């Protein structure tokens, strides 16, 4: 195999090299633990504040590293591309941000992520750090059951990190944050669609092949095939494929909603806004009141073309926390 067609050096060094770039770009606000591949708020740990730690495989940028900063995460653990971080990384992040008030782990529901975070939490507890973990599983494409790995954690992670991060910044304690996070998880749902797969640097070819006239419905964020293949359709039809299963899974009428239309990495913003227009129309027709929205690339799958929809039924508390100041590389407002 020749050089894979990516702006990288060696496929094994992608994460290490990117962390050097992130450091060069954001030295004013972030600190990088290169040994453990952890991105930290430059001012962590913050006295009295619960530390919010997330992380997962790399390749979903700006998630999670782009959300480290005031009002959101204290640290992000960067696994190899699409590979959960190891417990050492999570442990390093956890001890680095603990100021005595404990640490909340926000974990996307993947077997690997859950196990690695669990092992780290055991290690941290052994060192006297109070740790709580909340698992995010918002993907309605996956049938949930007692006998399976359950639903994936996808787009809701972004909204979760914003809302819980704001509450931590306000001084909420560990138990309160964990219960807020569980409420957010219970109130959010997502659904994604791909026009292409993505190419993992180590592999050098797309994870799955899709015909010129095919869509992959119900994809996650790791380039894995989705639940179903359908013929290519118009934006309006694709919007319905996203909106319907989300609304079928939970009633979003009667409370204001926070809606994210997220790009998977290679979809032009022009198309994302166009899709948002279609999705917003369908949601409104179904009686959903969109109180806030976010359109752009927030949780990606390398160079996958496609998008995902996340809807969160928000209470006043969540809306207020959503609007609260945030100052990170990828999300910034209300300062």
């Amino acid at each position, binding site marked *: 195999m020749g050089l894979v067609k990516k702006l990288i050096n060696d496929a094994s060094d992608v994460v290490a090299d990117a962390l050097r770039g992130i450091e060069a770009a954001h030295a004013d606000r972030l600190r990088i633990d290169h040994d453990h591949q952890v991105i930290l708020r430059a001012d962590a740990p913050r006295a009295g504040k619960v530390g919010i730690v997330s992380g997962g495989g790399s390749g979903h940028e700006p998630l999670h590293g782009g959300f480290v900063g005031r009002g959101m995460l204290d640290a992000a653990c960067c696994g*190899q591309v699409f590979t959960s971080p190891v417990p050492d990384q999570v442990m390093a992040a956890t001890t680095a941000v603990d100021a005595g008030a404990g640490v909340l782990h926000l974990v996307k529901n993947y*077997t*690997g992520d859950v196990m690695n975070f*669990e092992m780290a939490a055991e290690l941290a507890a052994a060192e006297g750090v109070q740790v709580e973990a909340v698992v995010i599983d918002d993907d309605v494409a996956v049938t949930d059951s007692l006998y399976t790995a359950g639903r994936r954690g996808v787009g809701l992670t972004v909204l979760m990190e914003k809302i819980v991060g704001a509450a931590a910044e306000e001084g909420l304690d560990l138990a309160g944050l964990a219960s807020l996070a569980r409420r957010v998880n219970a109130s959010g749902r997502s659904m994604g669609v791909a026009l292409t797969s993505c190419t*993992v640097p180590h592999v050098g070819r797309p994870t799955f092949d899709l015909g010129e006239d095919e869509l992959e419905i119900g994809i996650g964020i790791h380039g894995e095939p989705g639940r179903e293949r359908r013929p290519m359709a118009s934006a309006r039809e694709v919007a319905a494929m996203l909106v319907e299963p989300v609304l079928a899974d939970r009633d979003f009428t009667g409370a204001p909603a926070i809606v994210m239309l997220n790009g998977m990495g290679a979809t032009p913003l022009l198309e994302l806004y166009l899709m948002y227009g279609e999705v917003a129309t369908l949601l409104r027709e179904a009686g959903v009141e969109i109180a806030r929205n976010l359109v752009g690339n927030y949780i990606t799958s390398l160079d996958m073309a496609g998008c995902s929809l996340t809807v969160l039924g928000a209470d006043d508390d969540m809306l207020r926390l959503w609007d609260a100041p945030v100052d990170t590389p990828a999300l910034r407002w209300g300062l």
Partner: protein
Amino acid sequence: MTTVDLAQTQAWLADFAAAIHENAALLTDLDRQIGDADHGSNMDRGLTAVAALNADDFADTAAYLKKVGMTLVSTVGGASGPLYGTFFLRFAGALPAAADAAGLGAALRAGVEGVAARGRAEEGDKTMLDALAPALRAYDEAVGEGVRPALEAAAAAAATGRDATVPLVARKGRASYLGERSAGHQDPGATSATLLLESAARNLG
């Protein structure tokens, strides 16, 4: 009576590391079909680190294998890191000094049960357990014949279990997200677990 010593054990891991390296592209390609295309590179990264361990640095086989487990936990990541890590940590914990076939069997049982506990999976979920669990049963049946024949039986059972994952619909791990579409593909973890037992059968006893 044959017992398992440190040198043999290191040879096992070296052989496993080589087998993983040779099969990394295959493992990743299996994972590409029903997962996220990283099982080969994950395992290869971990076993490369394991192969770099020097057995002379350890007091005994159990200490060495404990370090193997910790190394895998610290370098592999994903689902397979904690699972293989747990396998070796529990294996090491249950391994008697100068283990004979029965002692090795006890270690193997502890390792396999550790994987099941950590992953909360059962046989038939289309995971590495579908190779490991039948291997353990085959080992136990042949344990009277000694380490090498018991491991050979275990490796053969693992291969059969691996092949039997093809028609299964996954209920655990990343392939489970595919639902019915996961059927028709061989599980990557069952494939690497079979390599583990084949390496054992070539080097222990």
